[in-house]
């Protein structure tokens, strides 16, 4: 089943073309990695899929509809989770934010919501930290909390923007192992720099630098890496 379908998508910001004629199909339970240089348009593409930026040229369909309609089916883990670490907020409260937008009680948190948030924390192995201040966690732990927040809404697709950019090697491995596990029942899209790590986990890779390169095109400098990777996967 196709969960995301992007056709002839272009996007400009201040008259500068950021994305040009992107075509991409994501199937259910794919583990897609999006690689490419800084400023190549990776994050912009995510924002279009998430409906944060409006689509002006081309089309994006998530579950066959415009992105705004299916926001609750997509979990999002933003890029930099090391901002605002002084903020007085407990881990569980961060996770509970995942519920916002769905039905909620007049004030405070409903029991089911808290249970569900604890469940999401358990899924990422962070339930012991529920009542710890978010700033006291390490970068890797914080990233897992952000994943739990996204899982809280029971998404069918999980989108992560550079999930390991500020985490040590061990932490990175744990995050990817966790994603691999989650991939058993949800579709995963990861934006990343780090091809070597991604190669072990993703089942398809696209390269974005204004244009999108699949393995069968031959115009990009990064052609070799992507091509190599996909061949490597086919052999397996």
């Amino acid at each position, binding site marked *: 089943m196709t969960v995301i379908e992007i056709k002839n998508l272009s996007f400009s910001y201040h008259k500068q073309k950021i994305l040009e004629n992107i075509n991409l199909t994501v199937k259910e339970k794919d583990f897609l990695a999006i690689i490419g240089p800084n400023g190549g348009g990776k994050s912009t593409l995510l924002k279009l899929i998430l409906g944060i930026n409006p689509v002006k040229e081309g089309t994006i369909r998530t579950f066959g509809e415009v992105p705004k309609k299916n926001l609750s089916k997509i979990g*999002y883990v933003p890029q930099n989770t090391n901002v605002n670490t002084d903020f007085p907020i407990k881990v569980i409260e961060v996770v509970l*934010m995942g519920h916002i937008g769905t039905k909620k009680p007049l004030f405070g948190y409903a029991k089911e919501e808290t249970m569900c948030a604890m469940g999401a924390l358990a899924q990422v192995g962070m339930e012991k930290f529920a009542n710890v201040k978010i700033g006291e966690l390490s970068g890797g732990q914080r990233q897992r909390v952000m994943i739990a*927040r996204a899982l809280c809404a029971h998404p069918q697709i999980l989108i992560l923007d550079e999930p390991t950019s500020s985490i040590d090697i061990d932490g990175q491995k744990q995050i990817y192992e966790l994603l691999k596990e989650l991939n058993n029942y949800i579709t995963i899209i990861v934006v990343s720099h780090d091809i070597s790590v991604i190669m072990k986990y993703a089942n398809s890779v696209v390269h974005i630098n204004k244009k999108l390169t699949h393995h069968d095109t031959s115009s990009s400098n990064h052609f070799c890496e992507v091509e190599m990777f996909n061949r490597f996967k086919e052999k397996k």
Partner: protein
Amino acid sequence: MLDALSFPFIQNALIAGLLVSMASGIIGSLIVVNRMVFLAGGIAHTAYGGIGMAVFLGLPIFLGASVFAVAAALIISVITLKHRERMDTFIGLMWAVGMAVGVVLIDLTPGYNADFMSYLFGSILAVSQSDLYFMGGLLAGIIIIMTFWYRDILAVSYDSEYANLRGINVKFFYTLILVLSALTVVVAIKVVGLILVIALLTIPVYIAEKLSNTLYMMMILSGIFSSIFTVIGLAISYEYDIASGASIILVSAISLFLFLGFNRFMLK
């Protein structure tokens, strides 16, 4: 000193001090976690233009100051949401123009001799009954808003991009925080004055921040600390006959230094 409590103006001052401390504890926490301290300073100084206008037109001071402060909050909200990169320039401009308008209008008011100092450094001993109603009403409004919209305000303050994604109206809540800040600044001007408003909104919050795991805890603690500092500051100002606003702020600042010192040497 306790017999001072029998004077109605001292009673009013105490009640006003406590109401404003609670309001500034809650709103000060929001200002600090949203990194809006400079914005609040801009609003406070713009409010001086409103004080000038009220004096010139013979309107109630709170009304004039509130109109200017809320207008400033709305302008700042539009600017920060649209032209974030030029925000500091606009705020600096409003800051200066607001003050200038206030000074000119007060100069133009015939026969007006009341001292500027009372607005710059506060005049808590001159709080009237109607001032108390305004302060009480504001505090009640703030508590109601915080109770029902706490989750949304928390989400917008902690991670506005994610809040937007979850369908929260970030612009609305951001503007709401600024408008509440503006009204709180106006009542705080009465207690500690324009110059010291920022200190009242931030010093107790800095201490509370270190002791809190959650935003509401930070708000409650800030309100309590602020109340204690205000009462002690008032007592000292009465005993030694010094300006109440400055006395409150110095008590707060000394407490902050003691707290930071204690925190460093005892808890580490």
